């Protein structure tokens, strides 16, 4: 249980308590009111015959007034507490839904050319990776140096990025050297060495899209997803924004692709909608 979730629970309990108290108070007051009115009325009746009862009536009226004022004050304070608790609940519940993803894996010594984004180095040990796929891929694509690119492509398709453990396994089992992997994986734009967000958004920046306003689309999406300067993934790691050279749908410019689904003839607003539909 994350601290946010604990806070959300506490706030929820407080909200429920406040509501219960207010309701109870109201019910008590509501049932007491006719009785008190009756008492005052009977005292007033008695006063007509016996003037000495006047202080009694005054005292009774004072007591009732004070009780009601006290209740009003109490309820007002409680209402404020209720509002604050509700706010706290909403805030912490929202954060606990967008729970922080498992920490990102670090890239090994090899520098890479692709826009890595500001991926924080992991503080905890990442969960071990299932490497059996690598063995299958090697069986399928061969062990020669020539199979380096198809292997990397298969690994990237499976894990959605190139995990270091998988690359090490490739080097162990095939003729491909670490130097070759470092060279090819940093040369080709397709390969990434850091994990991607849940959805990959490719905004086309081909010629036709450029003249139809691809820049505005990208800027709007960066703003909308609150992607920090220099990074390509939003803080919650839901969307990775990628600028690509051409998606080949020039007549529908500007175009973007969310996880293989293409949307065309975009405006900044419809680009946002295309993302919302996915999320």
């Amino acid at each position: 249980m994350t601290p946010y979730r604990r806070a959300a629970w506490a706030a929820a309990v407080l909200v429920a308590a406040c509501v219960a108290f207010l309701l109870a108070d109201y019910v008590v007051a509501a049932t007491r009111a006719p009785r008190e009115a009756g008492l005052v009325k009977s005292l007033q009746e008695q006063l007509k015959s016996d003037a000495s009862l006047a202080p009694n009536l005054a005292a009774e009226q004072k007591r009732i007034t004070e009780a009601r004022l006290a209740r009003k004050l109490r309820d007002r304070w409680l209402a404020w507490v209720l509002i604050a608790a509700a706010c706290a609940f909403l805030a912490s519940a929202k954060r606990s839904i967008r729970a922080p993803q498992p920490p990102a894996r670090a890239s090994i010594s090899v520098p890479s050319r692709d826009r890595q984004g500001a991926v924080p180095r992991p503080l905890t040990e990442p969960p071990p990776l299932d490497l059996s796929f690598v063995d299958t891929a090697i069986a399928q694509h061969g062990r020669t140096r020539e199979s380096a690119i198809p292997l990397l492509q298969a690994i990237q398709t499976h894990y959605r990025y190139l995990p270091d453990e998988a690359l090490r396994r490739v080097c162990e089992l095939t003729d491909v050297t670490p130097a070759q992997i470092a060279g090819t994986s940093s040369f080709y734009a397709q390969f990434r060495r850091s994990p991607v967000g849940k959805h990959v958004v490719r905004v086309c920046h081909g010629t036709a899209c450029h003249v139809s306003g691809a820049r505005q689309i990208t800027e709007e999406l960066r703003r909308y997803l609150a992607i920090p300067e220099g990074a390509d993934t939003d803080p919650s790691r839901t969307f990775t924004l990628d600028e690509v050279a051409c998606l080949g749908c020039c007549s529908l410019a500007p175009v973007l692709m969310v996880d293989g689904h293409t949307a065309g003839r975009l405006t900044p607003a419809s680009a946002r909608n295309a993302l919302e539909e996915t999320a």
Partner: protein
Amino acid sequence: MSRRAVEIRVGLGSCGIASGAEAVRDALEREGAVVKAVGCNGMCHREPLVEVLEPSGRSILYSNVDAPAARLIARRHLRRWHADLVGQASTPAAGLQTRPEFLEKQRRIVLENCGEIDPLNIDDYLARDGYRALERCAKELSPERVIAAISASGLRGRGGAGFPTGLKWERARAQADPVKYVICNGDEGDPGAFMDRAVLESDPHRVLEGLAIAAHAVGAAEGYLYIRAEYPLAVRNVRAAIRQAGERGLLGSLRLEVREGAGAFVCGEETALIASLEGRRGTPRLRPPYPVEKGLRCHPTIINNVETLACVPWILRHGAEAFAAFGTRSSKGTKVFALAGKVNRGGLIEVPMGITIREVVDDIGGGMKNGRHFKAAQIGGPSGGCIPARLADTPIDYDALAATGAIMGSGGLVALDDRDCMVDIARFFLRFTQAESCGKCTFCRIGTKRMLEILDRLCEGHGRPDDLQKLETLTDYVSRGSLCGLGQTAPNPVATTLHYFREEYEAHLHEKRCPAGRCPALIRYRVTDACIGCTLCAQACPVGAIAYRPYEKHAVDDTLCTRCDMCRQACQDDAVEVV
């Protein structure tokens, strides 16, 4: 309920799917129609397309179809009572009659089957004389005769450089090495060109047949198709086609394999492509030796573009003369262009060589969108150049285009209107080539970087007095000091725009002004008196630079404005102008 024997085709190429053709297909199928999934017929501006072939042979093309329209179309053609009851007029999408204007001036050789056959069904291709040319090769045409026919047809490489295909094959044939390779280059990285994707997706067997004929001509037993990984549908369709052709034994002893490109523009260059196939970084090497002498794994290799190979079966079926009948003295046949940009009708077009740019833009493209003026045609992508409107009568021909400073290139044709800034266009292409430069040659690696810095400066209004001279010098150095086509042609967009639109560069440099109103740093948005105070712009502004003041004239706060253009797009009264 009586059903008439009709064929219903839905264009399910990448752009069809992008505009919602899958929903249309599902809607048609729910109505009980048997849908034939075809590729792209090139009319991308009208997608999704549904074509209905009636038993009489009449074809009706419905455009911009959505699911409800598809239901009506299915009912109209599949249920007679519906037509009798509701009448013909009820069909919402206007039925385009047999030959729309868009197709009027086109002549289809490469694209003849695109949008008409099911790419995943080999019988469809066979029914259209598919693999007949290859069959003839096996039976009667010796490799020498094939090469002679290709040479006589005048076919030149469609990938950009325009090297005569027959000559390439002949040289590879002459090599003594018993091991030879054929490669189909489908690494179409040029932003704005998608003809190879369309052909591979819509008619993969044609490319396989062309490749098999090439293998027969040069004596190769192994072939590769190098296809961009960004084209998943093309990869899938080609793999399926190889499997089908193999099952039917059509490819003989030829072994074909698809290799996916990994996203490097330079791999369209043949020596870089070979490096990539060998599992290395895709850097080009010095030629000679040419790949036809020492290519893949140091064996003779021919590398042909998808479109070139797609022409080959047609040439052998119809004869070299029929192909050579199209075109000009030096450029024969047809060329496929990806027409895009500000034209009304964009899409994939195939025109005979020699047609003028004006005919393409006005007659096929239907003129410019929103009645704006045609300013220039960007042809050939990042290696090509911008041809201004006053040279629009230039015929499409390898040599005539080269004379203007542009190149034929792979066939991207982007029409630009008066709202497009030429400096920005040059910067766009240079940014692309600069990012895609493999870094091997110093001039390409650093020269393009310096040129880009100058263009960035100009677009931000910080140009220095000698920047234009510097650009010209660098243009010369980079094109002379680079090994491969990427570097040699990288300065072309700058050189042509600087040559034809020098005044725009000067306006950026001296007056700090962008005449087309595109460069964010040099423009401001202003609300004119036409403003009716509807607050649409204030609502659209993502940064709150326009205060929300109903029924009053709005104003843009320049310090907050990011020049995203959303206010101008939102305004219904054209009250937001760029100054």
